[in-house]
């Protein structure tokens, strides 16, 4: 299984490169220092990304100048807010090559998107004995909602196992598909191993077995070109706050006919066409799924983030992050004696590296790095079963984004040597 869908035949073979040093000036936070006067070395972008000025100002601009509610106002400010909100739909559709902006449902984050599908599509389509195939490398967001669903409906979960290198085992996936699952749900890119899964090939296999496919793109959309049509997915979800957008923004994309056939998830204002005391009719897609006043400011901010990313070019973003991870996978084992790195080789992975230092708990690693202004994550990264699979209590993780520079990976290496020194003194 190798992935061609995300590069595609028509793409340039030599993508334009980013100049990360130049674009760092777009991120005001990168010029701050910590309590000890150390500049910020932010290596926790997989948890949430920093925000460029364009995004900060899109949010601030709405709050300052046209903070009206949308869809129902007849005055100028409300029309401006509605316009900006709906433009975001078009921008997001463009970012993932969705055929129609009306297939973009705004949600708070990837988690809500998956819960929406589990409640709305899942409760109607999963019955007793039906199975859902997941993988061992799922984030809790793409695992626990399905646990709740099969518990309620008396269905089954099956898991595609991974190799010790952190790659899915296609031959077992093949076997699990013989169970004729109703749904296959998997992450496009792992937030712990960094593995990029072959989304198109897996989708084709799942479809051939009669399953629908949901892809968790939380760690993919921010980092590489994603084309939901080329992949052929049925549902695709992601969070705005990991793709340079504000917290509170995110999207579910699904094929129009699926959205139309699905019952509403949450109910309230804006998602209805007509309400009577004892019955209601639903609004058109996507509004049927957006009950109540949405997070207008955040979604407008996500539109600015989508513009920013498309301006850089997702091929260039992906190439930049591939360079970084290649550099890190080369540098860290040389510079940090005993470091244990998890996940596949650079060619199969996105821009993040999870690791451990021998005999030192990752919390202690993160805490000591913090004193040098270096931010990494320590813990199970919302992927407990994956840590169980490797018999790990926790790992530390350095994750990259467009603004990450090799010098920060150098700083990480120096910081990790210092951690070892402290613990082994």
């Amino acid at each position, binding site marked *: 299984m190798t992935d061609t869908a995300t590069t595609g035949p028509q793409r340039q073979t030599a993508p334009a490169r980013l100049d990360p040093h130049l674009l760092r000036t777009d991120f005001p936070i990168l010029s701050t220092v910590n309590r000890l006067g150390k500049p910020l070395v932010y290596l926790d972008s997989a948890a949430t990304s920093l925000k460029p000025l364009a995004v900060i100002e899109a949010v601030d601009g709405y709050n300052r100048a046209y903070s009206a509610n949308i869809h129902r106002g007849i005055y100028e400010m409300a029309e401006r807010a509605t316009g900006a909100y709906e433009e975001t739909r078009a921008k997001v559709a463009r970012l993932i090559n969705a055929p129609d902006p009306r297939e973009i449902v705004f949600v708070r984050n990837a988690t809500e998107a998956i819960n929406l599908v589990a409640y709305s599509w899942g409760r109607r389509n999963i019955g007793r004995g039906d199975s859902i195939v997941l993988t061992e490398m799922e984030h809790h967001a793409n695992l626990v909602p399905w646990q709740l669903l099969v518990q309620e409906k008396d269905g089954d979960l099956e898991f595609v196992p991974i190799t010790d290198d952190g790659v899915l085992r296609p031959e077992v996936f093949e076997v699990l598909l013989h169970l004729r699952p109703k749904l296959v749900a998997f992450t496009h890119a792992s937030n712990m191993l960094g593995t990029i899964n072959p989304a198109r090939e897996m989708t084709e296999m799942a479809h051939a077995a009669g399953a629908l496919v949901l892809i968790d793109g939380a760690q993919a959309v921010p980092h590489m070109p994603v084309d939901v049509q080329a992949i052929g997915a049925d549902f695709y979800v992601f969070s705005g706050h990991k793709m340079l957008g504000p917290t509170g923004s995110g999207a579910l994309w699904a094929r129009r006919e699926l959205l139309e056939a699905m019952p509403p998830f949450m109910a309230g204002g804006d998602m209805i066409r007509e309400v009577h005391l004892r019955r209601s009719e639903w609004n058109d897609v996507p509004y049927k799924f957006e009950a109540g006043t949405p997070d207008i400011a955040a979604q407008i901010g996500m539109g600015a983030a989508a513009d920013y990313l498309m301006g850089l070019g997702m091929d260039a973003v992906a190439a930049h992050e591939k360079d970084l991870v290649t550099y890190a996978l080369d540098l860290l084992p040389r510079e940090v004696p005993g470091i244990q790195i998890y996940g596949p080789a650079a060619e199969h992975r996105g821009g993040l590296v999870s690791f451990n230092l021998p005999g030192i*708990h990752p*919390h*202690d690693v993160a*805490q*000591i790095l913090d004193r040098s202004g270096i931010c990494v994550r320590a*813990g*199970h990264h919302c992927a407990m079963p994956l840590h169980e699979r490797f018999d790990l209590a926790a790992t530390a993780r350095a994750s990259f984004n467009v603004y990450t520079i090799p010098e920060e990976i150098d700083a990480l290496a120096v910081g990790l040597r210092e951690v070892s020194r402290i613990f082994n003194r």
Partner: protein
Amino acid sequence: MDDLYRDYILEHYRRPHNFGVLEAPTASYEGSNPLCGDRITMMLGISDGVVREVAFTGRGCAISQASASLLTDEIKGKSVADVEKMTPDQLLDLIGIEISPARLKCALLSLDTVAHALADDAAKKVEAGGSGAGAGAS
């Protein structure tokens, strides 16, 4: 030098005091902090209302392990009543370094686990009709 990782903290982490198992604890409890994977089993040998013996096993970060090492030293020989009265602040004083909010759970896991062990023990005694003799268990 790192404020948080002073020598004595690392010393307690590397060679924790009272690390091991009791053969016949009168009270024990396994506490965990699943978010970081810290996990501690506290074993107490209580008689006549006094903690005569104490041991712990587990794995976790330097803070949680050093905290358990320091705490077990502290409570050995104390009365159960006194141990029950111990506050988080007292334990933090004992640890003697500044703990950031994100690490509080690590630092306090040992005390929390001791408290659970004592509470379980007390509940067992109530069930057993107020008999003063701990039944010993794991």
